[in-house]
């Protein structure tokens, strides 16, 4: 059990770096509390697996330190750090039975057979694998195999952190939610720090207490799912989270007020500086509504998903999506939109202006 601190981590896979793009990770500073459920969320190639492998010890960072409980473990092996990692596809020992698979890490640490036996049975119980214990591991389905991988990780009782690298990738869609709930349940039961890497926001938002969003090797925002949803600190977060994502529109700043298509927008941001190369307004479709005045738009399309209506509109500066109650009437042709000030933010060079 430990608190994990990442101190100024940077990593590059190349021997020499000439530009930002040569770095897989840049200046990562992060504190992970003991027993927390964290998600590392981001698109493919943003560096999340790199970061995961640095935390687990499979990779040595080019710069920076990793601390477990304030102790520098950067030079320690995964075994020494006492971590467990579950990979994208099931990694099992084909030649062994399920029982032997689960017992393997314990045997390697010199546990005596009777202890191994009780521990394996305990884990199998937790993961509902008891019936298959004596079957060949290679005969199980993909989700069964992932459970074995998970079991091997859990088997060692003194594990500090359990890391998941997109573990549901090869699982059938209808089994994904079963496993996801199982993982959440597990976390509540055993109370160990869990770090879950994924590019799927649903997985991240349902599993984690704290989500860490990554983009192009940098940490963009850390927060609870609600915080990320309501107040994205970077346009990328706004755009990536939520379905549909946040509306991002370019705007001009006139006397410290953002203006779109000549209409002044009241936002939650206090604009002090104005020397940004790019300024934008961000507002989620949930917080946009039709009104008698505001930004003039043309209504393009209305889709009804049953749970809500998604309306595609267009103004001079770009497209705006609106989410509204399924039974509400939608004007057609030309209309005006107004934004809920509390959830409207201004972004300078993609970062939020508070």
């Amino acid at each position, binding site marked *: 059990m430990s608190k994990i601190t990442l101190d100024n981590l940077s990593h590059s896979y190349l021997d020499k770096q000439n530009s930002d793009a040569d770095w897989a990770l840049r200046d990562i500073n992060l504190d992970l509390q003991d027993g927390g459920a964290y998600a590392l969320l981001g698109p493919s190639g943003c560096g999340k697996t790199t970061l995961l492998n640095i935390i687990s010890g499979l990779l040595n960072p080019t710069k920076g330190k990793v601390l477990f409980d304030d102790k520098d473990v950067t030079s320690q092996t995964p075994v020494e750090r006492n971590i467990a990692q579950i990979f994208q596809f099931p990694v099992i020992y084909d030649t062994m039975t399920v029982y032997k698979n689960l017992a393997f890490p314990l045997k390697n640490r010199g546990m005596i057979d009777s202890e191994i036996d009780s521990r394996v049975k305990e884990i199998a119980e937790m993961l509902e694998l008891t019936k298959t214990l004596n079957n060949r591991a290679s005969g199980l389905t993909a989700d069964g195999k992932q459970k074995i991988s998970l079991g091997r990780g859990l088997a060692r009782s003194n594990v500090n952190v359990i890391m998941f690298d997109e573990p549901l*990738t090869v699982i059938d869609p209808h089994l994904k939610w079963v496993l996801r709930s199982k993982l959440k349940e597990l976390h509540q039961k055993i109370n160990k720090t869990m770090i879950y890497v994924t590019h799927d926001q649903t997985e991240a938002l349902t599993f984690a207490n704290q989500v860490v969003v990554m983009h192009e090797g940098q940490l963009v925002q850390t927060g609870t799912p609600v915080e990320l949803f309501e107040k994205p600190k970077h346009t990328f977060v706004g755009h990536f989270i939520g379905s549909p994502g946040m509306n991002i529109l370019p705007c001009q700043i006139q006397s410290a007020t953002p203006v779109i298509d000549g209409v002044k927008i009241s936002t939650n941001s206090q604009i002090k500086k104005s020397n940004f190369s790019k300024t934008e307004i961000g507002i989620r479709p949930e917080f946009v509504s039709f009104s008698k005045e505001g930004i003039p738009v043309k209504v393009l399309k209305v889709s009804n998903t049953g749970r809500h209506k998604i309306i595609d509109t267009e103004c001079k500066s770009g497209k705006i999506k609106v989410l509204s109650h399924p039974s509400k009437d939608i004007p057609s042709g030309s209309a005006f939109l107004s934004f809920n000030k509390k959830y409207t933010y201004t972004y300078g060079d993609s970062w939020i202006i508070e």
Partner: protein
Amino acid sequence: MKKYKWLVPTIYILFLMLPIYWLLNMSFKTTTEIINTYSLWPQKFTFENYITIFTDNTWYTGYLNSIYYVVMNTILSVVAALPAAYAFSRYKFLGDKHLFFWLLTNRMAPPAVFALPFFQFYSSINLFDTHVAVALSHCLFNIPLAVWILEGFISAVPKELDETAYVDGYAFWRFFFKIFIPTITAGIGITMFFCFMFSWVELLLAKTLTAVAAKPIAATMTRTVSTSGYELGLLAAAGSLTIIPGAIVIYFVRNYIAKGFALGRV
């Protein structure tokens, strides 16, 4: 213990290089010297063997002819084998196990058995003395080899990979070329080298099916057993030269073999 790991391949390579050194040694000697003296390097260093080879038209064209049909055969074998190997690995179909084994049986007959029938057969379809004939005839043993090797490598890639790509919406052929083939680069590299190698060293069929136009080095190699006995110096020089094309092939595929599993994030 781990420190001395490098000793193993080093000692093995030394073992392999000794006779090759001796071959090179002989290639720079005259046949008389080879037969009469024991010397670790040529006492009378001579290029005469190599000169004979480079100036004699049959050697030179023979070399090129060989390269021509071997390359033809290698490409044909690998290209035909890839889809078949994929099918054998991923699908069950009527007769699949028997067909797979039947392929291998084509490598089980002593080549001498095929020489005469092939001669008659390829002559009858007007392919005698062509590169195509040799390239096609070598398919007999190279295609089964290619299918078997590739099937082994393809089976090592978890089937879940294919299914994930489908879920992501890839059309089959795009999946095959962009996602799948990169995962079996080691298999393809090694298959190409082995097809090249087995076709390159095959003498009997190559000699039987050709006369002048497509005459490979094979024919000239066996010609060195002339009425005056072995022309050893010449044979050694020719032997040394035959190593070069294959060495180039494996040099080119070395990265495919060593990089092995190169799974991009799907």
